[in-house]
Each structure stands twice: as C-alpha cells, then as structure tokens.
C-alpha cells in the first residue's frame, strides 16, 4: 500500500508541476468554443446538439495528455524501478491512472459544467453532466493507459495513440452523450459506471503487460 501511495503522490506532483489541468482545460474550453462557431449560434439548434459535443471535447482533451504518460518513464529508467518495486506493476499503473484522473479527469468534468451551459444545456441537467463526465473520463483514462503503454516506444506517437484508443472511447461517448442530451439518463449513467469500472480494471492489466514488453 505504501508503494502505491508513494507512486500516486509522485505522479500527481509531477503532473501538477507540469502545468496540471491548465493546458487540457484550456484545450477543452477552446474546442467547446469552436462548436457554436461551426454550428451557428442559433439557440434551439445548440440546445439539441450542443451538450453532447462537450463529450467530444473532453475525449480529445484526455487524448492529448496520453503521449508522454509512459514514454518518459521508459526513457529515463523510471520504468525499470517500477518493475522491481514491492508492488505489482498493474497496481502502480492503476495508481498512475488515478493520478491522471485526479489531475485531468476531475477538473475536466468540473469545467464541463460551464461549457455545457454555454452550449445551452438546461441548468438542471448540469450536475448530472458533471457526474457523467467524471465517470466518462475515468473510462477514457483506463483505455488511454493501455494505448499509451503499447505506443510508449514510438517517437511522436500522438496520432497513433488517438487511432488506437478511439474505438475504445466509443461506448463511453455513446452513453455519456445520452446523459448530456437528457435521454434515458439513469440507464446511461449506470452503464457509464460499468464502462468506467471495466476500463479501470482491464486498462492497467493490458498496460502493464505492454510495459513489461517495452522494458525488454
């Protein structure tokens, strides 16, 4: 447990000192800003199609943080130390994912509130949008861990990660957008929670398997 706590603290501190959620949130708000510019500012159109687009922006913002996630550890030798630590690599990866979610995922979910309001989401739906994005970013991070791990050895692998990870983003986007659009909210939230759990459980296992190969 102490090893996991230490790993979580360190990853969180490193992400924080690297600017934390500043750049992802800026990116997220910038992408949201483009939506009315592309669709036109008409209120009824925005109200029906806008809020789900918050999810696209959030997915892209998470994607943008993945490229260096394990690449740095592979290059500077930190990965070797993780391999011989007391804790299994799977759990250390989970700790890193948890740190990423706290540093990026949760702030994104909170920023989605104002973004959804700007895209004409009804005010009473905003809390549920924030909750759904908190779950959704967890699912994104889980899948992202695996994608970042299999591409850790690839220089400038940003586009490759996106291509690999996007099919795994499809289920959370579907249910998340349903919540944001106000359709079948309870069922969608439950399934979204299932997606988050599955990604948090399976993502680190796949990522650890890939990282062991990367260390060879």
């Amino acid at each position, binding site marked *: 447990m*102490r*090893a996991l*706590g*230490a*790993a979580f*603290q*360190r990853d969180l*501190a*490193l992400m924080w*000192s*690297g600017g934390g959620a500043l750049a992802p949130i800026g990116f997220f708000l910038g992408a949201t800003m483009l939506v009315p510019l592309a669709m036109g500012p008409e209120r009824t159109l925005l109200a029906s199609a806008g809020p789900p687009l918050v999810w696209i922006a959030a997915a892209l913002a998470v994607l943008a943080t993945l490229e260096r996630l394990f690449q*740095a550890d592979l*290059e*500077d*030798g*930190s990965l*070797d*130390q*993780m*391999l*011989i*630590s*007391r*804790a299994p690599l799977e759990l250390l990866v989970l700790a890193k994912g948890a740190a990423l979610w706290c540093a990026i995922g949760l702030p994104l979910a909170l920023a989605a509130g104002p973004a959804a309001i700007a895209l004409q989401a009804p005010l009473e739906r905003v809390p549920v949008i924030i909750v759904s994005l908190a779950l959704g970013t967890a699912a994104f991070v889980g899948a992202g861990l695996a994608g970042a791990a299999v591409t850790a050895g690839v220089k400038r692998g940003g586009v490759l990660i996106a291509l690999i990870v996007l099919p795994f983003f499809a289920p959370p986007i579907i249910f998340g957008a349903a919540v944001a659009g106000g359709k079948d909210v309870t069922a969608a939230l439950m399934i979204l929670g299932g997606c988050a759990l599955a990604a948090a459980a399976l993502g680190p296992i796949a990522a650890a398997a890939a990282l*062991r190969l990367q*260390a*060879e």
Partner: protein
Amino acid sequence: MNARRPFQDKPTIRVEGLTLVRGGRRLFAPISFAAGPGEYVELLGANGSGKTSLLRAIAGFLHPRAGSAHIERCEEPSLALHYVGHANGLKGQASVRAHLKYWAGLFGGAPSEDFVVKALNLARVLDAPCRTLSQGQARRLALARLIIAPRPVWLLDEPASALDYQGRAVVGELVEGHRAQGGLVLAAVHEPLGPKPSQTLRLAA
C-alpha cells in the same frame, strides 16, 4: 559502514546456458555461472558485448532465448534486487528529497535521510530539482536507492560512470559494506571499481 542487520537470505544468482538475442543477433556465447552471498562479481567486456543485457536478464526484464537466469534463495522474490542502470530513473522537475521519499515508499525502506545525504554528499542539493544536478550528482542520487532500502542482490551497470575520484571511493565502500552483510553484488564495469572481486566474468561475442 553502517549498522544494519545482515540479510536473513542467502542470495544466489544462478545463470545456466544463458543465450540472449537482440535485434536478431546473438549477444555472447552461452554463459553459465553462479554467485552466492558475500560475493562481488565483476563483469567485463567491450562495448556491445551484452553486459547490460545480461544484467537485465538477471533482473527479469529480458527473456532469454535459451537457458535461464535466476535469483535464488531469497524469501521475498519481489524484494530481492536493486538495479542501477545507465538511465538514473530521475525526473527533472522533482527534487532530490522527493526522489528519496518516493523510493522509500516504492522499495519499502525506512530512509535515514541524513545518512543517505551524508554518504553521497547530496546535502547542498537536497531541495534542488533534479534537472539542475550535475551528471555526477545525478549518479550519486541513483545510487542512493541502494542505501534507502536494503535488498540482498545489487545489479549495477557502470556504477561509477560520471563520478569523481571521491565518488568512486564511496561506491567501493558501499560494495564492501554490502558484502560484509552477506549481500551479493554484480557490476558491469570498464575499469576495476576498487574492491577485490571474488569472480571476474569476461563477455566475448
């Protein structure tokens, strides 16, 4: 050098008919050797002869193409070894103190920070971010892992690289101290580290 209790384990490295392949090329003729508690084994060989790969195979990072490399007779296999490779495993943004704390958690040590800092002469840079360290200071910090958490087997890859005369002496003392407690050290070196090795392995293609 310090007053920690000797290891309960009788750490042993056993390598049998080991063959490693990198990029379709066999690195060295199949190698076999064994080393036990209290030994210091020096690993010699030209650049590209496979010293690093041999260490990484013993650490369990590399899968052998044939033969085996094992660490035996340690109660907790996951707590068996330290590996200090070419890469120091440091993060530029984090301070020296943060690294010591992180490693203590990761490896399960109870760091006497004072001792670590004094032994490796890092007191002046304790709160500096690692990107400001010199090569030699960074190497000393990487070696601090050896002291923070006691582990019976040390696998060292050019431990004295970038170190000054005094730094080399400290590494020699660390190795001697570790042997005295029943530890086992395997080091890849270009020139002798100081302590008299119990075995010398020479890798040839």
